[in-house]
């Protein structure tokens, strides 16, 4: 499975905006919506990617393997869910901390093309070698 890297950057930029809005407004609903987007992206049905396809019609100059960004979406989903638990239970440090972590990774991806979620793979494997 291959993906357009421009769509990935676009999705990361949109994710950055949404997560920043979550932090500013404190809206658990908006974070829940972002969590749904992460979950859908995990199964290759990224709503942000579809918006990109609707706007940009030119073909990409190169394609990328879909597995690394999907893994990163899973990491994003974990942080979004943790943040959601924080907002719903009003544990403010958890709400802000987890959402900020997701914002941090989304911004690095959007602005620098650096996939922090992908980098987590080897570190997670080093800690849990048998987790197959």
């Amino acid at each position: 499975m291959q993906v357009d890297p421009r769509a990935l950057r676009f999705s990361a930029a949109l994710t950055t905006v949404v997560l920043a809005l979550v932090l500013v407004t404190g809206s658990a609903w908006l974070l829940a919506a972002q969590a749904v987007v992460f979950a859908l992206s995990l199964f290759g049905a990224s709503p942000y990617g579809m918006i990109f396809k609707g706007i940009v019609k030119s073909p990409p100059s190169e394609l990328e393997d879909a597995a690394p960004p999907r893994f990163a979406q899973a990491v994003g989903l974990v942080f979004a869910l943790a943040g959601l638990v924080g907002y719903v239970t009003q544990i403010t440090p958890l709400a802000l901390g987890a959402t900020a972590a997701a914002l941090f990774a989304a911004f690095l991806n959007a602005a620098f093309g650096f996939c922090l979620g992908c980098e987590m793979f080897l570190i997670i494997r080093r800690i849990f070698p048998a987790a197959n």
Partner: protein
Amino acid sequence: MLSCSVTGLAVVLVTLAVATLVGVIVRRRNGVPRDVGGDVERLTTGDLGAPLGERATLVQFSSAFCQPCRATRRILSEVTAMVPGVAHLEIDAESRLDLVRSLNIMRTPTVLILDASGRVVKRASGQPRKADVIGALGLAVGE
């Protein structure tokens, strides 16, 4: 509802500022071959599961969820085709966690540049530039 709009805005600004700083540092350091600090490691054919190159060896650690690994593989293949006596070995980090731990590898791709005896001369984490690999190889072959 949480009333954290001012706190939330501060968190956004601090997060973006730190992320920008980290992004600039990562971009600057990414893929640059560096001297190996501390104890000098020596890898054998037994460690690697494949013979060392006659003059030098490029050892690439890759993983399944690694976007720049494919481009790194292409760059290292081009270099080995150019410089005689240099071998390119690719190791799946997940299946060799023993080596990953003993060499303290945190990222993929990580490229180790070994001299003829298997001594780790330089190490690059992140996708290296071709010219940097050639430069580091010169050092490995010249010694």
